[in-house]
């Protein structure tokens, strides 16, 4: 999810190329380049704690394990397994992302031992009651957006490019998103989301970046604030591991049913 977010939010380093590039072309070229920069991790696993907060400050917590498989020439395959809350333990999602055609997504309900194919077109809905929508969690393929470079800006002392992107998906919950990208490392530092009425909806901030295998940047924490409801969700990532030897057989309906 994070590597793909980077993909959409990096601005090309063409300081000396005096090509009369439009801001849209610049944005797309950047997304393609950033996608390449996060290529080659093969597979990854990580643990995630998701903390939901409402306006009153009440919290509830989810523990989720996520496995990802890089697919050459297509979007990632991923599996998310819930460890907590206890009543949803063993619930798992399997997603095959694609660039242009709709993602395929399955939900495993352990009490019924039922694999349910779910409609990935309902992507604007909240993921497990959090402030992250399904489309925020999904693998962010380059072709899912069109882009425009806006300007340069300094954010919290960090030099950033500011990019705008527009979802190609017509049922998206967003009109547009604006991202601040760290110029030095091409990592997103902040993304602002605008809803279907083009009103400010949410802000996502990234903290605690670490580099793995001398290449891949992953944030320790992601915080999503919903300005309209006053609710927020914090994702805390830990135990990142790459190239663990996962294969296609680990990402199918049979392995989904075995998810624990």
């Amino acid at each position: 999810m994070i590597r793909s977010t980077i993909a959409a939010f990096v601005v090309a380093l063409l300081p000396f190329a005096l090509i009369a590039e439009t801001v849209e072309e610049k944005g797309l070229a950047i997304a393609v380049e950033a996608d390449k920069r996060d290529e080659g991790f093969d597979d990854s696993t990580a643990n995630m704690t998701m903390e939901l907060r409402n306006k009153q400050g009440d919290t509830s917590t989810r523990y989720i394990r996520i496995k990802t498989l890089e697919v050459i020439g297509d979007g990632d395959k991923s599996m998310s397994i819930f460890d907590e809350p206890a009543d949803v333990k063993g619930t798992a999602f399997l997603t095959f992302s694609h660039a242009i055609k709709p993602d395929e997504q399955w939900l495993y309900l352990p009490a019924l031992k039922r694999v349910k194919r779910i409609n990935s077109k309902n992507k604007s809905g909240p993921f497990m009651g959090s402030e992250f929508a399904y489309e925020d969690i999904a693998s962010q393929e380059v072709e899912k957006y069109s882009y425009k470079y806006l300007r340069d800006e300094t954010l919290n002392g960090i030099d950033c490019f500011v990019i705008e992107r527009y979802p190609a998906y017509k049922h998206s919950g967003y009109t547009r998103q604006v991202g601040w990208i760290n110029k030095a490392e091409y990592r997103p530092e902040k993304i602002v989301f605008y809803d279907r009425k083009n009103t400010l909806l949410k802000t996502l901030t990234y903290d605690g970046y670490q580099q793995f295998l001398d290449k891949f940047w992953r944030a320790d924490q992601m915080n999503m604030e919903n300005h309209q409801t006053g609710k927020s969700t914090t994702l805390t990532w830990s135990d990142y591991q790459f190239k663990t030897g996962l294969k296609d057989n680990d990402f199918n309906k049979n392995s989904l049913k075995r998810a624990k």
Partner: protein
Amino acid sequence: MKHVLTGFMLSTVLLQTPVNAAQWSGYVSGQYRGFFEDPADPRQHNNYLSAAAEPEFYHSWQGGDHSFNSILFYRVDQYDDNRTHGDIRELSWTGVFDAFEITAGISKVFWGVAETQHLVDIINQTDLVENVDGEDKLGQPMVKLSTAQDWGTVDFFVLPYFRERTFPGVEGRPRPEVVVNTDADAIYDFSAGQDHVDLALRYSHYIGEWEFGLSYFSGIDRLPSDFFPITFDPGGQPTAVVPVYSLINQAGIDGQVFFGDWTWKLEAINKEYRSGRRKGSHAFQSVVGFEYTWVGFTGGASDLGFVVEYHYSDANVRDTIFDNDFATALRFVLNDAQSTEVLMGFLTDADTRTAAGFIEASRRIGQNWVLEAELRTYNGTEQDRPLFSFRFDNFVQVDLAYHF
């Protein structure tokens, strides 16, 4: 340096045993069932309390390639001795060998796509005494071989030993007017009886937005083919029956497809009886329907789903309540932190004016507690239809469970 790196990578892989290599989980719950009217039979009651526990133990090794699963279930009911029951829901080993996997032991398998009736789902016997909606299943002894390939998934089952269906006892409610006596021997109208080894095969796959499955089962029908009276009142009317189980071959098909926010679903079975008085006859049953989801209902985070399913059966009217029926339901999902959901609907028979209604709601409280409530109503049931027995049995049920 290279060895150090290899060693590091190797240790990373070996240490990649899942965090939950050996774990306990499950729930304990208390349930209250309250009826609005006095019962048809004075031996029944108006209020029932029961408690249940379902501990689960899981262990895996070899990086998850081998796993042991066990789920035990037990419920104690205040009045119904039949409802006080236990079951081994799961006690199995699964081994994964590349694209192949084997499961041996007692397990559960779910087939199908429909919401209001599960026609193709034949592997496991229904634990009917647990809930009237028939969604709870008994563990089934099996050896299952499965392979997931690019062209689809194939599952093959060998199912030794048949599990008999559970039924409410004399003091249970709701239950049919004529009690099913599960202490007396059930009738198997073929020689092998309960030890008959059943076989099943299933092929499933997806192509884009289409999901489909084909299945074939040869063995003992989980649904009793008949009920044989064994005790009578002075007037000659049956007071208790035993189930009759027959051999069948059942071919099934199930599928679903998405068109925008619409999901269309189909399940159909063709059953051929191979034993007993129905030998040689066929029964065809199907359910077809759609679900439409209004995502972001009234602009908020909630979803509202509309479910309509039509049921058809060419079988004798006594066999099933689903012979020419519409089931319609609304599913309201709040998408909140407490996973609040409400499902409400009713089943109407197109030939008669029978209607059965239901409301099911659930919500998490805190981090570990789940509260569920159900309301079931049976209205305008006509004599000579299976639901006629339930005409006084409108009830509300509340479950509070602690999950760990």
